[in-house]
């Protein structure tokens, strides 16, 4: 090689190393997120987790869910509820928007009106429960609900991010909103789509001191790359749960800590209970009793999970009925007996059928791009085929699966499946939304993908919605879970535990929020 070339190469290598040192000196908190979250406004963030958590570092709610899922006053200082429908809210004094404008009751009234008129899945439904807003003074506002709603503090006050009226008043198309500005502990300094967000502490913040001067949320889509970056010290925390197979390696690593806790996102098996065969509750019970749940958790999650409960709610949920905590298990011999009572006998090929020619043979949809659910479907098919119920697993792309199980996200449009793998995100569990899951009225049971209907369940869930006394409400929800465990329009297979890894040298103030994990507002504030 020419001497000059050698010198040039050496100089280049040296300056690359020097720039690496310069860049990595004086580090901010570096967090890996899973995908782009838009401009981090209530209308442009993308995912409930972690997008909503990131967005609410900027936009805040009147109440904040704490680590134990109890709503605590946040922008609100106090709340009095009269006649179950009048919510008189006293706002916290001295709260400023990040541009220095005071936050007032007018902003609260404006926000609720805005969510009502600008439709967005998560916020419009809760905002629409409010029929009247009365601003008494700058710091006092009364919301009146159309009907009592036991969950309104959690699903409304602790969920709706407040919008600054003076900014949003002129915004007609909120999906194209680019300016993120709220009352929160962090300001958005820079957003590079699909690359990263740079947030800085809001020095004027009214509440607890922000834990970081600078927070980088970098988009790393690939799971393996995320954890390689954590190992290499390029990020300090990942919002993504650690895959079961690598937990041990991280636990052994000296510079990485792992926190583990309950995870509320569920993995379930849904059935179209209007199909011949599946419309017989005895058949559904045999299906539920033939699945080896322990094996699913052991094989698919390497034990890092919680067995599904017949009552759907995670055992860590305060509303979970301890009496519906486990599925009954039966042997293949018992299967023959049970199905015999239901009028089914084994055909020549070993598959049960009845006198009307109904064969217990079903197609089982599973998402091709979710290996855990696909494998779960295959394991369940083994169990059911052994029991004489013929199950054919069909793997299809996830959006296609959703379109068949939940056409246009509107259960009134019916369904086109027999058995399908599915899952609900954490809020369905955290909010104990059994009414959404099971109500036969499609405007109320908006998540009722199975086409299930039971007058008693309708009555119980309607009553639970308006019962504000916690004990009475719990009692009603217990009874709904008992009905669900008997009728089984859906089978809850397991809950994947949340396992999160971070570099304690960078920050070790992460706290675990029940059902969700370490990424929630409390972790980003010094307390």
């Amino acid at each position, binding site marked *: 090689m020419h001497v000059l070339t050698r010198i040039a190469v050496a100089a280049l290598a040296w*300056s*690359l190393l020097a*720039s*690496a040192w*310069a*860049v*990595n000196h004086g*580090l901010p908190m570096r967090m890996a997120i899973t*995908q*782009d979250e*838009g401009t981090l406004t209530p209308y*442009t963030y*993308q*995912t*409930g987790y972690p997008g909503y958590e990131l967005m609410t570092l900027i936009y805040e709610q009147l109440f904040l869910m704490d680590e134990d899922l109890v709503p605590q006053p946040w922008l609100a200082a106090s709340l009095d509820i009269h006649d179950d429908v009048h919510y008189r809210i006293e706002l916290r004094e001295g709260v400023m928007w990040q541009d220095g404008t005071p936050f007032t009751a007018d902003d609260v009234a404006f926000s609720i009106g805005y969510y009502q008129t600008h*439709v967005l*899945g*998560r916020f*419009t*439904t809760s905002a629409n429960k409010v029929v009247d807003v009365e601003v008494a003074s700058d710091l006092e506002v009364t919301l009146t609900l159309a009907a009592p709603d036991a969950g309104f503090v959690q699903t409304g006050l602790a969920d709706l991010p407040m919008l600054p009226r003076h900014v949003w008043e002129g915004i007609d198309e909120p*999906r*194209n909103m*680019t300016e993120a500005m709220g009352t929160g502990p962090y300001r958005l300094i*820079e957003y*590079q*789509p*699909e*690359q*990263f967000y*740079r947030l800085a502490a809001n020095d004027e913040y009214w509440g607890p001191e922000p834990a970081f001067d*600078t927070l*980088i949320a*970098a988009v*790393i*889509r*690939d799971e*393996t*790359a995320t954890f*390689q*970056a954590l*190992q*290499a010290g*390029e990020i300090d925390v990942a919002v993504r749960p650690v895959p079961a197979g690598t937990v041990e390696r991280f636990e052994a690593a000296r510079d990485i800590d792992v926190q583990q806790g309950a995870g509320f996102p569920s993995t379930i098996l849904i059935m179209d209970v209007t199909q011949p065969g599946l419309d017989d509750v005895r058949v559904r019970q045999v299906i539920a009793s033939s699945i080896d749940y322990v094996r699913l958790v052991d094989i698919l999650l390497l034990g890092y999970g919680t067995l599904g409960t017949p009552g759907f709610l995670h055992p860590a949920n305060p509303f979970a009925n301890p009496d519906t905590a486990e599925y009954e298990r039966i042997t293949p011999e018992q299967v023959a007996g049970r199905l015999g009572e239901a009028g089914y006998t084994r055909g020549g090929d070993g598959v049960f059928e009845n006198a009307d020619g109904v064969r217990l043979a079903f197609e089982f949809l599973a998402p091709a791009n979710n290996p855990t659910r696909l494998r779960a479907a295959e394991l369940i098919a083994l169990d059911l085929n052994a029991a004489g119920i013929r199950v054919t697993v069909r793997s299809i*792309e*996830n*959006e296609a699966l*959703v*379109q*068949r199980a*939940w056409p*246009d*996200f*509107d259960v*009134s449009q019916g369904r086109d499946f027999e058995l399908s793998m599915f899952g609900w*995100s954490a*809020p369905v569990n955290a909010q104990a939304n059994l009414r959404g899951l099971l109500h036969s009225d*499609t*405007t109320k049971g*908006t*998540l009722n993908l199975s086409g299930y209907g039971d007058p008693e369940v309708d009555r119980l869930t309607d009553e639970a919605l308006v019962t504000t006394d916690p004990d009475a409400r719990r009692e009603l929800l217990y009874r709904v879970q008992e009905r669900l465990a008997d009728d089984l329009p859906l089978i809850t297979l397991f809950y994947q535990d949340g396992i999160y890894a971070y570099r304690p040298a960078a920050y070790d103030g992460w706290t675990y929020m029940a059902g969700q994990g370490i990424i929630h507002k409390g972790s980003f504030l010094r307390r």
Partner: protein
Amino acid sequence: MHWYLGRIGQYALVLLAALSLNFLLPRAMPGSPLRFLAGEDVGMLAPAQVAEIRARYGLDQSLGAQYVTYLRNMATGQWGFSYQLGKPVLAAIRDRLPWTLLLVGSSLLVATLFGIFVGALAAWRRGRGLDTASLTGAIVVDSLPTFWLGMILVAVFAVELRWLPIYGAYTPWGPRSGLPYLLDVLRHLALPATTLTLASLSGTFLVMRYAMLDTLGQDYIRTARSKGLPERQVLVKHAVRNALLPVSTVVFLNLGFLIGGATVIETVFSYPGVGTLLFQAVLNRDYPVLQGAFFILTVSVILANVIADLVYPILDPRVRGSGS
């Protein structure tokens, strides 16, 4: 002239067909963009509200009506807003294009030059150590899955040695101008570009090697040698120049895919190129982005072909005769 007009007609037809496919294919995919128009919790909305959203984005119209609107919008340059990014499609693509050009362009350049050089050398030393080694190497690297290759490079150079960064195109909190920024960008480019170079190396190499072998067997090479020309001159002036013809076709074809990005590599390295934009648009059923991006892709592939058509007669005088 006649020849060119015919070509232009052909390309216009291809373009129209591509435009129609770009409209139909995204809509033929099962699933809908609703989740991205109404938020993740679209299931909480009443059916009437869902219908309202569909109407606002024109998704309630018949496919025919949507097609007419689409053609009109494409023609007038109103490519619409991305469902997921909330910004104009053109702006979304423009943001990504420079990174893709940098990544794919640099890899293509290195892969082409290296492929030509090693290919020529291997053919010249046919059957010897260098030939066997490079041929085996090319076939092995070619058969490795790209993402796996990338992961291995990451494991070695980023996780173990910690020489190079794993994700992104530059350091979010680092310098944004001058030499330090340039060096930061180069450091971030190193691993993805190396992976992509390795992955695309074998194409040029193999074509070059076979073309060169073919050329070396020609009479004019024997003539050149018997004239007593130095071997180096025979190789460079007589053999390589002629062997480059088929290689140029490969290069032009590759150029067309330059702006399509390298989806797998961009995903593995979180590189903000057009590839990840497209991939995400497919997952999210982001029709406007799919239509816009595929249109630009189509045009660039066609353009690359046009350039190849125009340049080839210059490179190879033999074609000129048959063309006119």
